[in-house]
């Protein structure tokens, strides 16, 4: 029965060690902001931060997390960069269906924490693992640049 540190709180989870973090979040803790899109780390809809680094929760066995700190989209607004990313997303009409955007926001926040003023190439590298079937890539790019301008 692993204990997982999520959004600043410890959760003792009654789950097998190999159960992916995604389903612990969604089904055990009912933190449904993190989305299922592929189950194979191909689309990025389930992106969370583990010790500040973007990770695909759908392939991350919950038993391997140990002491590491998980941050989900529900808590990312608590960081200055996370808050600014979410604000830029809303202001620039980035979401359409919005289903992938939890993962996009998490990937963008991790990028901006690491590189406050990313180039287009940085954005390509950091964001190309996140699919958007609505095709809002040009808006995601513009919103990342908008956030960077304010940093």
């Amino acid at each position, binding site marked *: 029965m692993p204990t997982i540190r999520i959004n600043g709180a410890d959760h003792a989870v009654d*789950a*097998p060690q190999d*159960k*992916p973090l995604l*389903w612990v979040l*969604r*089904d*055990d803790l*009912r933190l*449904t*902001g*993190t*989305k*299922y*899109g*592929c*189950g*194979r780390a*191909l*689309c990025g*809809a389930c992106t969370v931060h583990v010790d500040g680094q973007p990770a695909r929760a759908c392939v991350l066995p919950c038993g391997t997390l140990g002491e590491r700190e998980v941050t*989900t*989209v*529900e808590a990312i*607004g608590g960081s200055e960069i996370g808050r600014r*990313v*979410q*604000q830029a*997303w*809303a*202001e620039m*009409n*980035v*979401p*359409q*269906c*919005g*289903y*992938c*955007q*939890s993962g996009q*926001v998490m990937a963008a926040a991790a990028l901006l924490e690491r590189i406050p003023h990313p180039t287009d190439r940085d*954005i*390509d*590298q950091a*964001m*190309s*693992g*996140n*699919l*958007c*079937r*609505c*095709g*809002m*890539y*040009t*808006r*995601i*790019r513009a919103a990342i640049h908008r956030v960077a301008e304010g940093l």
Partner: protein
Amino acid sequence: MAARDHWSRREFLRVSAMAGGGLLAACSFQQDSDPLAGGAGPEPEVPPPGPGDSWQANAFVRIAPDNRITILVGSAEIGQGTSTAVPMMLAEELDADWSLVGWEQSPTARDYANPKTFSQLTAGSATIVGLYRPQRRAGAAIRAMLVRAAAKRWGVSEDSLRTEASRVIDDAGGRSASYGELASEAAQQRAPTNPTLKNPADFRIIGQAKRRLDGADKAKGATVFGSDFHIPGMLTALIARPPAPIGRLGSGADTPERWNHEAALAVPGVEAVLAVDAGVVVVAQDFWAAKQGRDRLDVQWKRSSKPHIGSGEQRQRYTAKLDSPGLVLQRKGRGAQGLRGSGVISADYHFPYLAHAPMEPLNVVIDHAPGRCEIWTGTQWPDGDRGVAARVLGMQTSQVKFHTLPSGGSFGRRACSAHDFVDEAAQVAKVLQKPVKVLWTREDDIRGGYYRPSASCRLSAELDTQGLPASLSARLVTQSLVGNIGLDELATLGGAESNSAQGLTDLPYAIPNLLVDAHNSYDPVPVLWMRSVSAGFNVHARECFIDELAQAAGQDPLQYRRRLLQAQPRLLAVLDAAASAAGWGAPPAGHHQGIAVFSAYGSHIAQVVEASVDETSGLKLHRVVSAVDCGTAINPDLLIAQIESAVVFSLSSAMFGEITLEDGVPQQSNFQDYPMLRMYQTPRIDTVLVNSGGEPGGVGELGVPAVSAALANAIFAASGQRIRELPLRKHVRIE
């Protein structure tokens, strides 16, 4: 000039006071038995309802005492922005303070039907087109009632009052009152039957680039999609479906013969294993247990007697059919007479099956017990889905309470004419009699059938002495979108939308002799409309072929189209605007351009793709420019977002999209073999609006069909290679 717009005889507005203050308005679509229907003479004004009237359940506007306005939207929010654009239309005529306007998804009820689809079906780029006038009429009528209330309160004439930002203002008296303050009194006024609509020049909300009302929640991960929805005691079910989608066609399905019941039940958390028509169902405490259980089922399927087709074999059949005349859909002038001999230019184009692949796989939450049923799901067709659930459960439609939740994408998949995902969820619930969420994995989605049909199209033409086409023939082989599922009567409802020849029978070009004929192939593969429907392949073929004709005539593709579009002023205007914005004819060194056009849903678009093809890095996209005329834009920024979305959607299909079948079984399963455009592959996208005013046209699908052809034409310009089969990656390297 302001329009006087009459309510139709079968709809009227009812307004009443809310308990605790405020105002509630509903628009009632009357039944045929209504005495107002068909009567002569002036339409009576509608009296305020008496206490106890049940219509309030279907209210679509609430004005609260604190001046907040909530507008209920009957169309589905699938990403296209209806939850913002529909309220904007009503708020405009109401003269609402937009900062205090919110939205809610409406219940499933006839009152929320879109007149264009005769139901709550959200499809065919029809939401704005269908609701532009009804929403404005409702807003104008409620505004008139608020003005009447204020006039009575102050003892002045209505004409001396004006409205702005949710206030009625008496300039002469130097006073004003908020809508919230006036709401209770307004509810006692008679509703006008023919409210005056604004002159578009006076619009304050329509035409503004407002932020999406659902944008902030979506950025916070706070939106509750169907897959996020939870009710107490809810179980999770996964279904092992037949490997060949033929099995989803009801009779003739492959059926489960044996499966390892015990192995699935042995997984901790698995509660039940059931067999229903849809397949073998594993019911568990949560997704992960259900997934482990299903992985251990090892179902052996008994093949039905229906043929299990392969894509290669199908291509051969379709190609052979291109040689024989089909059902004539359109003939103009001499038709295809004389289209033989050495002067004829001809080209065959081939298109694969495509999966919609919305980011949120299908899911349904259903709570059924004897005599009652409640369903929550993201769908484009709630009333149709509800009817199917009632049929499966042997219940009255009125006993099924149906809730539409926001969809994580759809592109037509959630407007399934067979209502497959709700049908099978009802099958599960019928046996289980417990609240359950039926989830699809990505593999279930990609292999699940209901694909955009495959198609082959032969275009032939002969040029006149000017190099322009004197005769053109278009022959299509594809599956009917409606014939395969016994819904032929639907073919007339959507007109060109559900017609497999859209883009061919509505050719914009001036060509004197024309023949369009088609073979409907009855392949045992469930097919479904996908964003832009048959125009997705027909317009691609047509616009590539026009390019081939321009080449044969030795003319520039832009100038060639201009010559053929002289009778199409709106299309000509977007063509010129796109060419100008894209710098047609003068791309950066090493880049090459292609152009294409499309008109539908009352809207027009021209698109230019700038690309390069080189030995080392293959195909690279640099820029896409679109010019759009949709008459009136409700929210120009969301319109532009729709075009950007369509561009990426279309390029993804054209470059990568392909479902192949072997022995009836789809060979793709997830994003590694059904890829789509990613950030690093996406070009700069510019969209220019050249709206000509008047009624708004549809835009949700507008940007899809032409841009893929513009890309193929750009590849020809870059490499001299004519690629006549999609996906392009079969013929050009893409990294």
